[in-house]
């Protein structure tokens, strides 16, 4: 057992951990971050090889259970409508994410006040606004100012090309009189901070060989490390231990050789996402916390939120160059983002226009959906669809429900023997009604844009990117895990900065808001260093 003690110990080097480390580096304190994964080498990403598409079905698969790297941990999804997808390593899931980068809306922080459901957040959009802007600058975000659906904001880079896909669907939205706008994207449209611009390779979800996609291994981390933060890879945290006075003492972890190690710390910061964080907290049992650390409220692992989603794919007569360009980043519509009870559900959804797939994915999904046969007719059906598609994704707000949980699996473990997370999650009627409405509207938009055929896929099971709500923030220690700046109500030198502290999910991809929150929490800690534990 080492007596070496660090000032701040961050667990997890993904979206939130990287932003937090970068911000706290100002303090010149001794900061160490542990991550169970490795650095990824952009030269290894699939786009460097001829078989770039098939690699996304294997070593770069989004599902850790399929990918099965020794840096991954298994997830039991058997009792869940949604499968957890992620990446474990420096950069976390930003390595494989689509980089669609909208912020939560001002109304998302006040859903109880506005709509009488769930709870309000203990902070507001205005509180986070400067941190959203700071994060946009450091990550490198492309977008267009002036979207009336948000308070004024200025992305640092011009928008990504809409391409024929974006133009075509935009015309459909215009026919219907609906809102649309170029998406904010964490992909650089011009050279920026030593990185070259996006090359429109297409398969962002298997890593960006060009470095045009803003994953935190190439944005926050290089500067944080230059400024003194120590990042240790292949360190898998098992549990957080406590001192006699009830403060966190440090963490027990396994190194790359499987040796059990201990790292003491003055402050422990959890940044492992909405599944990884409750997993470690629940595994940190002690006499005072028999149900897991920081869990006197019973809320650790509860209120798991994904974003129920589906896709409608329109087939067009004209060629749209669908496989070119960032797959997930094009344009969006917030026409149905806010509550209208006449629709039969509360809250709303985002319409995310996405581009098409590569040829292998097109052929295989065509086979599985029965739209592109093998054998006679294959060539004709493939030619009709490949590069002739535009899709509208429906991303629904998922309201918190206590019975949707992350718990510890009694049998399944990772390669170090740490219990795996078990997901228990079912769609609510509200979510399914919302999704059904959204799929109808997606088809309506694609038909208005000229689609001759629309293929619908909903709900999508393998879609659990957004892992939210399992250690929620709030002012009441009886109903929340952390306070309004991420500090545990129970353990005053334990902080949580990832998506698990979301009170509600909004209906947009959460990374921008997760990072703004982590920068906000870091700023609060810096401003209150002398009274941090009061």
């Amino acid at each position, binding site marked *: 057992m080492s007596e070496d003690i660090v000032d701040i110990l961050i667990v997890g080097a993904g979206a939130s951990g990287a932003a937090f480390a970068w911000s706290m580096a100002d303090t010149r304190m001794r900061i160490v971050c542990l991550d169970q994964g490795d650095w990824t080498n952009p030269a290894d990403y699939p786009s*460097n090889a001829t078989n770039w598409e098939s690699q996304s079905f294997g070593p770069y698969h989004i599902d850790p259970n399929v990918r099965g790297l020794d840096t991954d941990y298994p997830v039991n999804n058997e009792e869940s409508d949604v499968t957890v997808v992620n990446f474990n390593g420096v950069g976390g899931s930003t390595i494989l994410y689509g980089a669609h980068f909208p912020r939560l809306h001002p109304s998302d922080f006040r859903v109880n006040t506005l709509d009488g459901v769930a709870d309000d957040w203990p902070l507001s959009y205005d509180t986070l606004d400067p941190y959203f802007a700071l994060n946009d600058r450091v990550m490198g975000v492309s977008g267009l100012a002036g979207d009336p659906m948000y308070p004024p904001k200025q992305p640092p880079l011009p928008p990504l090309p809409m391409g024929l896909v974006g133009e075509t669907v935009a015309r459909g939205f215009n026919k219907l009189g609906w809102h649309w*706008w170029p998406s904010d994207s964490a992909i650089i449209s011009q050279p920026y901070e030593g990185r070259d611009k996006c090359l429109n390779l297409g398969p962002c979800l298997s890593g960006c060989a060009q470095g045009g996609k803003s994953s935190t291994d190439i944005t926050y981390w290089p500067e944080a490390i230059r400024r003194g933060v120590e990042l240790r890879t292949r360190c898998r945290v098992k549990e957080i231990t406590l001192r006699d006075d009830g403060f966190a003492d440090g963490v027990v972890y396994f190194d790359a050789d499987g040796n059990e190690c201990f790292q003491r710390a003055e402050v422990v910061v959890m940044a492992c996402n909405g599944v990884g964080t409750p997993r470690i907290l629940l595994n940190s049992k002690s006499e005072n916390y028999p149900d897991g650390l920081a869990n006197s409220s019973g809320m650790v692992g509860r209120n798991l939120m994904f974003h129920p989603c589906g896709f409608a794919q329109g087939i067009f007569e004209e060629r749209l160059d669908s496989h070119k360009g960032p797959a997930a980043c094009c344009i969006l519509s917030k026409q149905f983002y806010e509550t209208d009870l006449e629709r039969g559900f509360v809250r709303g959804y985002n319409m995310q226009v996405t581009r098409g797939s590569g040829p292998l994915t097109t052929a295989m999904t065509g086979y599985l959906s029965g739209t592109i046969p093998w054998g006679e007719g294959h060539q004709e059906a493939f030619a009709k669809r490949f590069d002739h598609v535009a899709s509208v994704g429906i991303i629904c707000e998922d309201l918190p429900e206590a019975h949707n949980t992350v718990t510890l699996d009694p049998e399944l473990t990772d390669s170090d023997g740490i219990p795996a997370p078990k997901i228990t999650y079912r769609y609510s009627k509200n979510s399914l009604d919302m999704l059904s409405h959204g799929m109808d509207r997606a088809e309506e938009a694609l038909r208005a844009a000229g689609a001759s055929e629309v293929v619908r896929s909903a709900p999508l099971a393998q879609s659990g990117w957004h892992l939210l709500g399992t250690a929620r923030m709030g002012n009441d220690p009886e109903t929340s895990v952390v306070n309004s700046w991420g500090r545990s109500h129970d353990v005053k030198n334990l902080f949580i900065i990832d998506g698990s502290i979301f009170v509600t999910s909004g209906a947009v991809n959460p990374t921008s808001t997760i990072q703004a929150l982590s920068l906000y929490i870091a700023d609060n800690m810096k401003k209150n260093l002398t009274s941090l534990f009061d």
Partner: protein
Amino acid sequence: MSSIITSDHPLSVPRQKSLNALLDTLIPASSDGNMPSATDVGFELYLQTQADELLPILRKILEDIGDDFPDQTREAQQDIIRHFSATNGEVFQAVLTRVYDCYYQNDAVRRKIGVVAGPLFPQGNTLEPGDLSLLDPVIAHSDQHEYRKPD
């Protein structure tokens, strides 16, 4: 490279003939002759690089469809494969995935369908910028699209 039958092939000569017929049945050439059949894209080479995983499932399907498969009519060949896929769904999907993978990473095929041959990086793609004046109606009606105030 088309339909090569060699003595050092991991499959017997009859099985090689069945493999070629299988490939041609799964992805036949296009009727206008523009797109090649799956027999014409170097599957033998692909098989060499994927032998450990691919050979067992190939042997399974080739054994099942029989050595007289090449002598059947196209219609009969399709019926035989349909029957195999109905009774051995997992193996069939694995074989089909590999055949598609080989076919759609072939440089000639990619060029014909408008995809970068070889690795995507560093060549990349050019994308139409898009006409931002399409936003004019949204901006003109921005009062109808204004964000919901939180209080």
